[in-house]
């Protein structure tokens, strides 16, 4: 049990070094440790679910490990990570350098206050529980985590077909790219020549300015004022032109990058891998449409599925196809495989998304803060995916999850997930259509 935890810890460490922090130097080892610890304990939770299904270890020891794991994860997610985030953010701001610890504590208290307030508008509190119980904390973490999950799923649902399918790819020829590159270089040349003029004018003004200063008297002063004024007016005009040209060069650069990446995608789509992904893309888009449909039905008809897909699938095969097989035995194996697939794909998907996100927005100053934020997101995501996975497991395995996590309103979480998922999906689809249509009009 503990060896596997050490293994996961090592894996998280490696991932951090190789993928996330490829271009930066690790100066604060705390960050790396915290990230790996979060990763390790999240993976242990999934491992415990698998053990639950397989029936490995004894029931009481599983329960013990569950509780232990849960306490540690909550401790890390609610106390350790936010505190360090506050600490690093405060360290970056120069004014508050002296009283770092004090300000970090203040930030943490603000975080706790908002965290607590989060529970108010949701129907998750039952009056039976006290103030500082596990249920309170988990319920709030669950809300945040489920929102994140829905966000990521929604985004993935739209992004996946768009990336995989070649239907959306514009036709780009080498000639287009060359033409754009030529325009870019011409713009750069124009910027260079204008800057040369500015530099030369400035130099002449400076030299003339020295001469002018030697002139004394009333008329000398007036002459110096008028001549420098015309010079500087000229300069500001040219400077404005340069600014506009620089903006143009930036846009041309970005467009060229866009065209290059489209051309590469077209080439990739002609290979076998590309064709395979194209096919997957069609498959996924159908799956997404089905999911949207199901989510809408769930909300409109106010219904949450009672049975899990495994048992229902077995029922269907037994009743309609007349194939008799040992329900118990097969349900265990199938649910194990299904849950295993869900776990692996969600971990992989999350890590890839986090890496992309990190590359996009980090810089050498903020890398520590961003990694900690990512660790927080990862922890919450995994905790709430355990929550939601309860639906996919047959009844006999659900019991321990229910037991450990206490009496939460699980149905609420499912409904909340559907709502957010639909909202995100609609927003993204509307945006993408708008964006695509404007892009087409620019190009034609």
């Amino acid at each position, binding site marked *: 049990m503990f060896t596997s935890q050490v293994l996961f810890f090592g894996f998280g460490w490696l991932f951090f070094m190789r993928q996330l922090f*490829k*271009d*930066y*130097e690790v100066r604060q080892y705390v960050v790396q440790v915290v990230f790996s610890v979060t990763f390790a304990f999240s993976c242990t939770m999934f491992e415990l679910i698998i053990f639950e299904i397989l029936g490995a270890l004894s029931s009481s020891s599983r329960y013990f490990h569950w509780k232990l794991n849960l306490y540690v994860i909550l401790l890390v997610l609610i106390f350790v990570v936010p505190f360090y985030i506050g600490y690093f953010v405060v360290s970056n701001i120069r004014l508050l350098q002296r009283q770092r610890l004090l300000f970090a504590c203040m930030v943490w208290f603000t975080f706790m206050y908002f965290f607590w307030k989060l529970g108010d508008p949701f129907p998750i509190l039952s009056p039976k529980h006290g103030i500082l119980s596990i249920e309170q904390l988990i319920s709030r973490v669950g809300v945040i985590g489920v929102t994140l999950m829905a966000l990521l799923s929604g985004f993935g649902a739209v992004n996946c077909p768009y990336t995989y399918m070649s239907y959306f790819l514009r036709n780009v020829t080498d000639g287009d790219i060359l033409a754009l*590159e030529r325009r*870019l*270089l011409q713009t*750069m040349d124009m*910027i*260079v020549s204008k*800057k*040369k*003029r*500015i*530099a*030369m004018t400035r*130099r002449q003004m*400076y030299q003339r*300015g020295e001469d002018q200063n030697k002139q004394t008297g009333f008329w000398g002063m007036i002459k110096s004022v008028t001549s420098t004024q015309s010079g500087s007016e000229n300069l500001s005009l040219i400077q404005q032109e340069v600014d506009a040209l*620089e903006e143009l*060069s*930036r846009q*041309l*650069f*970005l467009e*060229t*990058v*866009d065209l*290059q*990446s489209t*051309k*590469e995608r077209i080439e990739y789509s002609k290979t076998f891998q590309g064709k395979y992904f194209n096919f997957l893309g069609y498959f996924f888009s159908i799956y997404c449409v089905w999911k949207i449909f199901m989510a809408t039905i769930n909300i409109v008809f106010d219904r949450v599925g009672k049975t899990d897909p495994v048992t229902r699938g077995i029922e269907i095969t037994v009743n309609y196809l007349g194939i008799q097989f040992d329900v118990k035995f097969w349900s265990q194996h199938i649910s194990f495989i299904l849950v295993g697939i869900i776990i692996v794909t969600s971990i992989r998907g999350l890590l890839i998304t986090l890496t992309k996100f990190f*590359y996009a927005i980090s*810089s*050498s*100053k903020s890398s520590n803060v961003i990694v900690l934020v990512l660790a927080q997101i990862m922890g919450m995501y995994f905790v709430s995916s355990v929550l939601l996975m309860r639906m996919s497991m047959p009844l006999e395995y659900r019991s321990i999850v229910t037991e450990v996590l206490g009496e939460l309103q699980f149905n609420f979480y499912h409904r909340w997930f559907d709502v957010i998922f639909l909202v995100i999906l609609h927003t993204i689809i509307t945006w993408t259509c708008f964006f695509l249509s404007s892009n087409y009009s620019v190009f034609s």
Partner: protein
Amino acid sequence: MASLDRVKVLVLGDSGVGKSSLVHLLCQNQVLGNPSWTVGCSVDVRIHDYKEGTPEEKTFYIELWDVGGSVGSASSLKSTRAVFYNSVNGIILVHDLTNKKSSQNLYRWSLEALNRDSSPTGVIVSNGDYDREQFAENPVPLLLIGTKFDQIPESKRSEVLTRTAFLSEDFLAEEINLVIEKRYFTRDPSPVRLSFYLLF
């Protein structure tokens, strides 16, 4: 002004090392107040009097092309960047003294710039391995600049200096350590005097 010859110098390095600040300092004689990410390439010009004071004095415009991005970026970004690497007369490699990785990435930067130059078809041929032989026959002079020296605590400074000495040996370059102090310029600034040592 058209009669003056063109001198194009690339300024390369990882993002955040201070290339834009350096270029701004060299060309505008001012410290850059609000540095932001460079998208694409930003050019600035400095007038240089070559062999000043001698009868062969000639005024050159030195164009400093500050190319943004990182070595690990997407290949579409790299192939677009390669457009700027045509016909360079010199390369300035900038690295951050507080960040070791930026110095290690300089090898890849130099390979990216030099390979683009030499192959006529514009295809980047190297497989990323560093080969000192390539630099021996390289006609383009290199200058290495390390920034943010003042942000290193006193105790670590000698260690950093030995590291940079090894680095410049690898590039077969000579080493200059500059500390550019922040001076608040009044109405008539005295130009920052920096001589460009062309290194082979």
